[in-house]
Structure formats: structure tokens, C-alpha cells
């Protein structure tokens, strides 16, 4: 370790590895009820994880949730950016994942044709 700047740069690099344990950043929530899994939620989840890895977005949290009740529109995938409403996408296919991450997660543009719901305040 030569300088304090070296250390700080290293910290920046390593910080992402433990981000999962801190409450911050954008959240992606995938419905993982039995029905959702039957509709292909696992595949969507894998696609999300792959895409996040490719883009090195290691500060994005991926969570799961149970059945929301809107089984008709599964797979359901929610995106919550900090201080923004919770957006629910329906009928998500693995092929849609790249677009959701590029447009919404990274650039904050909601993909209107996939949206099924919007919750203003996420507690």
C-alpha cells in the first residue's frame, strides 16, 4: 500500500462486494410463489443475475417475494429506484430482462408497455 489514495481506490472497488448487506441502491423484486415459478420466475431471476453481472451493477439488490395474487400476469418483476415509486412489470420473459435493466434500472426510464402497476410510496 503506497498512498492513502491507493487505499481509497481499493475500497471503492471492494465496496460493491458487501453492498448486499447494506440498505441502499436500487431493488429488483421478483415474485417467487409456486405459480410464479411455474410461469418461469427462476429463468427470469437467472437472466437478471446474469445481466447484473455483465454490467457489474453490484449495488443492485435482488429480492424475492411470495405470490402477489396477480397470477394471470406472471412472471412479475418490480423495480424500485431510490426515492422513486415501485413499478411492477408483468408477463416478464427472460428476453425482456436486458431492456428492463438497461432502460429502467440504469437510466430510470419506465418501460410503459410492460407495466402493470405503480405504487407511489414504498414503505
Amino acid at each position, binding site marked *: *500500500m*503506497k*498512498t*492513502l489514495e491507493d*487505499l*481509497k481506490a*481499493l*475500497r471503492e472497488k*471492494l*465496496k460493491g*462486494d*458487501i453492498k*448486499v*448487506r447494506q*440498505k441502499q441502491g436500487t*431493488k429488483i423484486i*421478483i415474485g*417467487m*410463489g*409456486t405459480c410464479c*415459478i411455474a410461469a418461469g420466475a427462476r429463468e427470469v*431471476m*437467472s437472466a*437478471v*443475475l*446474469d*445481466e*447484473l*453481472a455483465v454490467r457489474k*451493477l*453490484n449495488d*443492485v*439488490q*435482488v*429480492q*424475492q*417475494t*411470495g405470490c402477489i395474487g396477480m397470477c394471470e400476469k406472471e412472471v412479475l418483476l418490480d423495480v424500485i429506484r431510490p426515492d422513486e415509486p415501485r413499478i411492477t412489470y408483468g408477463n416478464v420473459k427472460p428476453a425482456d430482462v436486458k431492456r428492463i435493466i438497461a432502460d429502467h434500472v440504469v437510466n430510470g426510464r419506465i418501460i410503459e408497455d410492460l407495466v402493470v402497476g405503480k405504487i407511489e410510496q414504498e414503505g
Partner: protein
Amino acid sequence: MQHIRAHVLVCAGTGCKSAGSKEVELAFQREIKAQGLADEVMVVETGCHGFCEYGPLVIVYPEGTFYSRVTAEDVPEIVESHLLKGRMVERLLYHEPMTHEMIPKYSDINFYKKQHRLVLAHCGTINPEQIEEYIAVGGYEGLGKALTLMTPEEVVEEVKKSGLRGRGGGGFPTGLKWSFAKQSVNDKKYVICNADEGDPGAFMDRSVLEGDPHKILEGMAICGYAIGADEGYIYVRAEYPLAIKRLRVAIEQAEAMGFLGENIFSSGFNFQIHIKEGAGAFVCGEETALMASIEGKRGMPRPRPPFPAVSGLWGKPTNINNVETFANVPQIIVNGADWYCQFGTEKSKGTKVFALTGKINNTGLAEVPMGITMREIIYDIGGGINNGKKFKAVQIGGPSGGCLPEELLDLPIDYDSLTAVGAMMGSGGLVVMDEDTCMVDVAKFFLNFTQSESCGKCTPCREGTKRMLEILTRITEGQGREGDIELLENMAKNIKETALCGLGQTAPNPVLSTLKYFRNEYEAHIKEKRCPAGVCEKMAVYTITDKCKGCGLCAKTCPVKAISGTLKQQHVIDQAICIKCGACMSVCPFKAITKG
């Protein structure tokens, strides 16, 4: 590589390990692989979370779900339900003992809510065997800042200004201690970390060493820079094998990355750290005895002055601090003294880690700001007394401390308030006692401890504690005499004034404080030959009540034939023969025998 979406933190502190956390961790590894989640879920071994009563602990992120008392058999369910499907396993969540409320989140548990974790900030949240995780939470930035942006004088000043006081017991201002060692002119100086944690029931230092070892190395290196030392020793007891292992790993990693060794941060400052394993003598927690032990001599104290800052290890100026003291240093340097001063009271700054043990619901480690009351620690964090019993006393400060009664529960805790009421901060062990505890017996227990640990060098400690113990033993056996209380007080005063080191000078404290607050119990033992709590076996009187059906079982069981009576009629115990073994009471099918 895939995005790691979840971290499963398995506590690997000594408490959880002995409860089986290694098996739990292996089960997670196995099960995660079996479910095909190995690429997206990571299992992390962490240090102690402090909530040892509920171990093994598992915390699942990003949700921060807190699972307690997890066994290897529970793991498949957690993996399938939580990690695969996102459903919490409710039966393994923590329930508040007072309200029976289910609390899923780590941060919402009462035990943690009232705490303010500075020293323990990373214990349980990072992997102590990976320096990368320590760096990710800002590790070694204090050392970097001190070495590249501050002069040694400025470092000492900052520590002085922070008001940090020694966490090992005495409460001596740390910055002042550093300035003494700094002023000593010599070609060689040493830094020593006292990790010889010996108080019964105290384990805060062990948890810091096991959970965040790099913090101690960093604190020591900063101290080395400040006082002009290039070598340090950690004196850690051999009974802490896991702490020693993690320290060795940490030293190796820190050397490899250049945080220890030569020319650290290109500043020209060199520092290396050695580990010295102690053999478990309590007196070696005393600084002069500790240094003698490092030098390979018998661990016995010597008179001061000269103080270690002038002539310490191998006759060289030495600064010696406790684990928790060093653990406070990096954050003081990073955030500044003013930041640190916002915690605590006017004369006791910062936080203190307490080890909660005894008859309390939440056994474990609690870090709280100085100035909090004992009641908050015992009831809000500790969850109250076991089995709904009544609180009687709390022993604070280990064998050198004192027992405080219920009237003092609302006393704000800091160094000076505790000394004023006859106890001391000590290392921060809190042993909670309920109504079934005999205070004379407690005093005897602690005095017995210091008596056995007395090194024997000075007469007041060697002989005085022995005689005091004899008197206490006599009192608990129903042989107490008029004047014993005064004799105890007189001896205690003399030992305090004349013993050579801190061990002897504080050894009478448990007797003095129990005499002060529970004098009536001593009087009951001596005058009425009665133990109010019913603990002192030799004073117990067993009597057979009219519930007796005359079955004769007790008479058959009694080893000294003290029980007589005819069948189907109430039996009697001959008190002159009875040896108070209690065998009759345990066999009586009608609960007809009472002890009083």
C-alpha cells in the same frame, strides 16, 4: 460470474461455534449447491453478533432477516423457502421474550435497537478472515490518514481531545498515556495490546479479536506511529484459540498488503506485531506482570514507578492499552475527536461494551453510549430477569468491582459514577443476580477467585485475602461471630491501602460493596444463623410438614439415619444428626419437606 444476490451470514464466534454453527455453515454450503444456487448466494463466516443466547445465528441479506438457534436440520428449509422462493421461515425468527412478538429484521430487535455499535460495528457483518471486507468498510483509512496527513503530535492530540479512557478497567486517559510514552526518549519503544481478558463472565475483547481483528492491528499501528515505536505485542490468553488464529491470519494479510511491515504508506514508518500467548494467570492482566510474562519471566507485578511509559518491556518505554481501547482509535482518527465526543457523558466519552451474563434473558454483548442506566441495559437490552424472578443485584467490573442493588439501577453508568458507589467499570462484565442469590455467597465466590489468582508476592494480598475468605466461609457455614463484619471491613481497608498491584487493591471490593448494600444478609447469617436466600447449604434447616403421609421413603434414603417415625404417620428430622444433604427433599413424593 453471476451477480451475488444474497449473503448468508453465519456467526462463527466462539459462542455460536460451540452451539454448532460450523455444521450449520457446512449444511448451507451443501444445500445451496444442491439447489443450484451456488452462483448467486454466498455464505459468509462472521465474527460474534453478541446475541449469544440465541446462537447459532444466521442473517440473510439483502432482507436482513435474523434467524436464531438454527440447526443443520433447519438449513434445507431456509434454503428452499427463503433463498429459493423468498419466504421467511417464521418458526426460526426471533421472538421478544417479554411480548412474544415475532421480529423478522435484525435491526428491529430490542437487543440491538438500544445499542450504539462503534467498537462492534463490524463484528458479525464482515468476514474477519478477509482483509478485503475490512477495507470495504473503511478499514486502515485511520492508519493511512495518520501516517500521511498527520504528525505524531497531532495523533496524540486528537486522541487526547477525544476523551478516550482506558477500557481495561482503570479508565486512565489514553491520550495522556500516549503522550508519556512519546516523551520518553529512547532508540526502541514498544506497543502492547492487553488481551488477557480474565474476569469471570467477560468476553468482549474475545469477540472483537474474533470478529474484527484488523481493527486492533490498525489501532496498535497508529499508536506505534504516535509514540515512536516500531514493534508491538498482543498478549492474548491461550484459552482463546479462535482469536489467536484470526489474529495470525490478519497479521499475515496486513503484512502482505503493506499495512504492517516497512515503510507503510511510503511514510518511512515501520511496524510489526507479534502474538504472545498467555498461560491463563489472572494477574498477568496487570501491566507490569504482563510485561514480565512476555519477557519469559514469572508473571508477577512490580512496584510502579517507574511506569511502563518510562521503563516497560525489556526496560524500554512501552505503551500498553486494552483491546477495546485500541478498537476505538481508528474511528477517532478517521472521524475526528469532535465526532467521538458526541457519544457519552462529560467525563466518559464514547461507548462501552458490556458482557451480559447471569440470570438474564438475553445473554450476550451490548455496546451502549456511556451514561445509559443499568436499568436500560438489563431490561431493555437484556430482556429482564430469567423466569420472571425479581432482580436483586448486579455485579459490575468483575472480581475487582462491586455489587449494586436495585436502588442504583437508574444510575447513569460512567467511570466516575461507578467508582463513587463502590464499584468500577472494570472490563465491563455484568453478572445479573436474582432473588435466589445469597450475597455473602457471591462475595465469597469473587474473593475465592482473587485469592486463588493472587501471585503471592505481597503479604496483604497473599495472606489478607486468605484470612478474609476464611471469615466469609465461616459465616456461610453458620459459624459467624459477633465482630466478623467489622473485622472484614478493617482487613479490606488495609488490603486496599497496602497491596502491591491492582489485583490486591481491588480484591476486597466485592466484600465491601455487599457489606454496604446487603449488610442485613450478613447479619442474618451471623446473628440468626440463617441464609435468607436459602443458598448456604450448611445453614439450611430441613423440616417435614404435615403433608407427610408417613411413607418412610425419606427415612430409607437418609444417609445418616436422621429421620425417624412410624409408618403412615408424620416423620421428623433430628437436626443434630442432619447433614443438610437434601436427599430426603428430592425423594419425597408429597413435597412435604421444606428447606429454610
